[in-house]
């Protein structure tokens, strides 16, 4: 929906209109697709070069959060659904992957896949409930259900409560490649990230993605055209949850830790912040957002409470002045959709 076209009075439409961020609809020209191919190539090159300039662990953290943001943006930017509970999928996948790797001794690829499956299943449950309401209620419901998952994680035995699951073995990929070396692990994380990015790009540009955009822009019209809107919403919710799980599971293997931080509501806030800073509805937005936010947090970590204050300030500034985000602005400057 566009910002300018919205009337100030929305009491009646508050519930009926699918509301989403103000992502402009641009024709998917062949030119744009070629440009996106260049961007993809540039990202792949950057993935190869980055670990030479930056600390690999830092880059892996950015990649995990970028993938998390991409998954979240699939739901918000293209489904028009603001989930305030994405930490649940990220965190639970982390717990399941960590548990699978540590207690069941599974290979890392199966551990991560287990996390993805758990996140998808949880996404199915939470999504089925949340899509029964729209707009602001959707956000509140996802937040509340994610809080329930948080309390469950706090009390359940297998999550280790306050301690979390520590000392998760990175294991051997396919039973052969030892991931103990950060550089080897980096290759795996980069491949997972790139696969996630390509998958999300493919989803957005598929016929399914086109229907999603139609629902986002005008839900009643999509209904009148005969689309089963709720099935599409649920499908994109589950996909988003599963991809968030991929990010969470990978993060648990990288940091060898799954903890309550990842299921807490502040993590849901963080992924929103990443997407907001990068640009909602911009395909590549969350990648830039993740870089900015993770870098900011690493830099500010010694200042304790200031991190929250500055995060809050970034929220306020972005909402008031900078709604297109970094990539949105860049996209306008280049006059090409990103």
């Amino acid at each position, binding site marked *: 929906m566009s910002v300018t076209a*919205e009337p100030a009075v929305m009491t009646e439409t*508050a519930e009926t209109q699918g509301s989403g961020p103000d992502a402009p609809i641009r024709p998917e020209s062949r030119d744009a697709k070629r440009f996106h191919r260049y961007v993809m190539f540039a990202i792949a090159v950057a993935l190869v070069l980055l670990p030479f300039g930056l600390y690999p662990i830092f880059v892996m953290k950015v990649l995990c959060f970028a993938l998390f943001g991409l998954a979240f943006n699939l739901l918000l930017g293209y489904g028009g659904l603001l989930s305030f509970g994405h930490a649940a999928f990220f965190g639970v996948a982390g717990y399941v992957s960590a548990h699978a790797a540590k207690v069941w001794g599974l290979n890392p690829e199966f551990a991560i896949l287990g996390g993805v499956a758990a996140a998808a299943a949880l996404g199915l449950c939470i999504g089925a409930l949340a899509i029964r309401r729209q707009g602001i209620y959707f956000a509140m419901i996802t937040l509340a259900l994610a809080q329930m998952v948080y309390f469950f994680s706090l009390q359940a035995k297998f999550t280790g409560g306050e301690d979390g699951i520590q000392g998760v073995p990175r294991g051997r990929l396919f039973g052969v490649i030892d991931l103990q070396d950060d550089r080897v692990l980096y290759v795996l994380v980069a491949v997972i990230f790139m696969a996630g990015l390509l998958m999300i790009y493919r989803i957005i540009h598929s016929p399914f993605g086109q229907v999603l955009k139609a629902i986002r822009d005008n839900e009643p019209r999509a209904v009148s055209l005969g689309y089963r809107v709720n099935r599409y919403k649920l499908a994109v919710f589950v996909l988003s949850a599963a991809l968030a799980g991929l990010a969470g599971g990978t993060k648990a293997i990288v940091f060898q830790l799954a903890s309550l931080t990842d299921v807490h*509501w502040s993590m849901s806030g963080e992924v929103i912040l990443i997407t907001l800073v990068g640009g909602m509805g911009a395909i590549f937005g969350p990648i830039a957002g993740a870089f900015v936010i993770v870098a900011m947090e690493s830099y500010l970590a010694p200042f304790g409470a200031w991190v*929250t204050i500055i995060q809050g300030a970034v*929220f306020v500034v972005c909402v008031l002045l900078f709604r297109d985000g970094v990539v949105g602005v860049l996209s306008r400057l280049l006059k090409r959709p990103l």
Partner: protein
Amino acid sequence: MTTLFGFPTQALFGQLLLGLINGSFYALLSLGLAIIFGLLNIINFAHGALYMAGAFVAWILLNHLGLGYWWSLLLAPVAVALFGVLIERTLLSRLYKLDHLYGLLLTFGLALIIQGMFRLQFGVSGLPYAVPAELAGGTRLPFMYLPTYRGWVVVASLAVCLTTWLLIEKTKLGAYLRAATENPALVQTFGVNVPLLLTVTYAFGVGLAALAGVLAAPIYTVSPMMGADIIIVVFAVVVIGGMGSIMGSIVTGFGLGLVEGLTKVFYPQGSTTVIFVIMAIVLLTKPAGLFGRSS
């Protein structure tokens, strides 16, 4: 010791009272959220943070200015309401033409800032706030011991809720408010200053939150995080009740507090999640909420 359903009555009624007290806070907070949402179309995520701010203002008044509980009960809501005026005038008023979700994001950011500031100043550990002397002690009832302060909290918040309901349903100002909720443009053409009404409504809503904070201060310790968790429960309360009716918010708030209290007696592990479970059931059976108008 007497028992009821195999549980000591003392514990049962004690938990029920505690549930009723939590319910008072849910009611006061969800009432404010509902009024603000009705008119401003913004879900005020900062509500929990302002509830916490109310408790802290009371603590500061007592420890730095020597002003006691009764002054706080008056001054803290006023102070927070004035802060609310500032927020509404400088920040929220810029968002009315945008998607509602931006309001949620902005107030979420505000909540983080307010919480961070108090954490920076006061640390994470809670600060004690003594029960005022007039309300100390308690009464021995046939089935339980009733601390006077706890009884006072329930009575006071019930009174405030009902006064708010009367104010909105029976007064001229309330009529303007209800009319502006339905159709602000039309109300403005009749010469009502709608922007001022928006400001007053926001200030009143957050004032209620601050009042709840002052009432809560002697029961819970005053800590920067006290608002963060309660606001999520209050969101669930709002989803269960639906934001269409003022009385609905009050009834749902108190009712869910009681249910939570009962769960603490019969199934303690479930007490933190019971409200979310109820929310899921309500969404499955009556998606618009118990008192909501389906659209």
